């Protein structure tokens, strides 16, 4: 099956600052990819490049198309929610459905209407009269009714309360996602959605710091809450990150970077006696990667 996104050597700079420096990654179909990075890391620039909203250097194919020259064609198979505030205030809910139905060949108006019936949103309301959460619900209703192959979400739940955030991701998983579809998400609230991801790409200072499936992460990284008397012994094995939590030292090891990689059996033998081992959460790993850099 063809790749959904193939990026090679993406470069983009605004004036003096480099937003993207030689970014390469691929995204396979049927994945939910988290694009994670601190503010100003280049996430949004990368998304904008994928959506044909900005110029850049390098090679990029999205669903086999060049977003720079084939944006309108690409948008038949790509949906995106860039930010909650982008639906125009003057638009009525009914008009929004009529509009997307008129211009989008893969939009199912009945499906969007059905989704809206589950909410408190009325067809006559204007977007400016809706609460922030309702605007997101409306946008999601429009997006979920589009039979797109790639869905791009840029901080889709920013500024929403927990209830709306949970509903948003539930709707995404239950009503939308399947093995032919791919979802690319950027978010700050990593803890909340990390169970969603099948893949993660960490990006920092315009570079890809980590690109892995979640399964591989579990094979590669191990977190140990080190027993107090074993700290020196553990440090000798070169953890790439360590911090203290409630007086206990937590270390994260990269099996690929350590000698441990050569023999996973040996890893278990060497690490297990040092303390309590487990797979680090994506949030922990993210913090570790950013601080180690």
């Amino acid at each position: 099956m063809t790749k959904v996104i193939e990026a090679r050597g993406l470069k983009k700079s605004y004036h003096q600052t480099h937003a993207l420096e030689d970014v390469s990654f691929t995204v396979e179909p049927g994945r939910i990819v988290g694009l994670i990075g601190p503010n100003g890391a280049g996430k949004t620039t990368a998304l904008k490049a994928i959506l044909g909203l900005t110029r850049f250097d390098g090679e990029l194919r999205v669903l086999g198309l060049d977003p720079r020259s084939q944006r309108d064609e690409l948008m038949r198979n790509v949906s995106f929610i860039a930010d909650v505030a982008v639906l125009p205030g003057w638009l009525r809910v009914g008009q929004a459905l009529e509009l997307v139905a008129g211009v989008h060949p893969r939009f199912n108006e009945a499906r969007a209407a059905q989704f809206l019936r589950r909410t408190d949103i009325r067809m006559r309301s204007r977007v400016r009269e809706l609460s922030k959460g309702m605007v997101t619900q409306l946008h999601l209703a429009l997006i979920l009714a589009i039979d797109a192959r790639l869905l791009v979400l840029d901080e889709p739940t920013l500024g929403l309360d927990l209830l709306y955030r949970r509903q948003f991701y539930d709707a995404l998983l239950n009503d939308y996602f399947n093995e032919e579809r791919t979802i690319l998400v950027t978010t700050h609230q990593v803890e909340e959605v990390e169970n969603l991801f099948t893949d993660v790409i960490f990006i920092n200072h315009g570079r890809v710091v980590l690109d892995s499936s979640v399964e591989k992460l579990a094979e590669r990284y191990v977190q140990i809450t080190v027993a107090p008397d074993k700290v020196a012994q553990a440090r000798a094995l070169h953890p790439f990150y360590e911090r203290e939590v409630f007086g206990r030292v937590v270390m994260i090891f990269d099996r690929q970077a350590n000698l441990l990689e050569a023999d996973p059996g040996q890893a278990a033998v060497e690490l297990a006696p040092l303390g309590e081992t487990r797979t680090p959460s994506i949030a922990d790993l993210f913090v570790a990667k950013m601080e180690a850099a």
Partner: protein
Amino acid sequence: MSTPSPSAVVSRPAESGLRAWLAGNPHLRMFETLVRREFWEHRSLWRGPLVVSVLLLVCAVITHGALKIDAAEPTEWLNPQSKAIVFALAQWALTVPHYLVMTLLLSFYLLDCLYAERKDRSILFWKSLPVSDGATVASKVAVACVVVPLGTFALALVTDILFTAIWDLRAVIGHSPELLVWDTVAFLKTQALMFLGLVVSVLWYSPFLGCFLLASACVRRNVVMWVTVVPLLLVIFERIAFGTHWLSSLVNYRTYGIWYDLHLESAVLGSIHNVGPAEVVSLPEVFDRVHVGPAFTNIDLWLGLVFAAACAYAAARVRGFRDET
């Protein structure tokens, strides 16, 4: 009382022929949707002309018909020969407010249409739809150059007829003197003159429209200032720096030039008649006297159109290339 059949309840209202045809043609359907979208956002485009019509019709109902021309009673100037002239003049006078309002509305519309979507950040939503920048700009050009002018003409025409009907009705019931007497030839010729003026205006003034559209796509703020103060400063600068008037004569020419080609001035001067004690222009005669040929063979008319098209193309490119953050 009969109950509706189940199928009537379930099925949507029967789609008109146009809708059905559009549904079978995705490109046309998209374009029609984009055009309707413009009227959703810019409600003044249809509300303004409607308000003008309603005001004119209210005037027809409430104004007292004792109109006087140079102190002459209607009976003095409303002889059979001048009836058509007065009738035509009224048609013209009723259309002028529509055209003035349209000019204002279209100017502000074009200045706003590509600017508002950046201001309210909805451009990211519009760009998430499979609509090219070219189609977006084309829909706005179609609204400004075709849909609104034709709609305004049609609305003005209907208003003219209704206004005359109301006034004639009042004359029949003896409420006011007979001022407007229907004259089919005068009506058709006056409306044809109005339509000609409209078509020529849209074509000749298209460079202005193009500039407005391009300003709307490019400017970050104060769009109105960019198309008023900045050109004025340029004219003054040219005068001081080079001592020339090239820019102001160009604007002057693009404002009046085509009306000389139509021989409008001589047509008007040659169509003046005495109506009672006053001198009044006979518009049906003006229509007979204007020279349509020279206006449409003036290469500047078409060059202006090419310039406007280039502006629209540039506006689409700017919209496509611009980085929205």
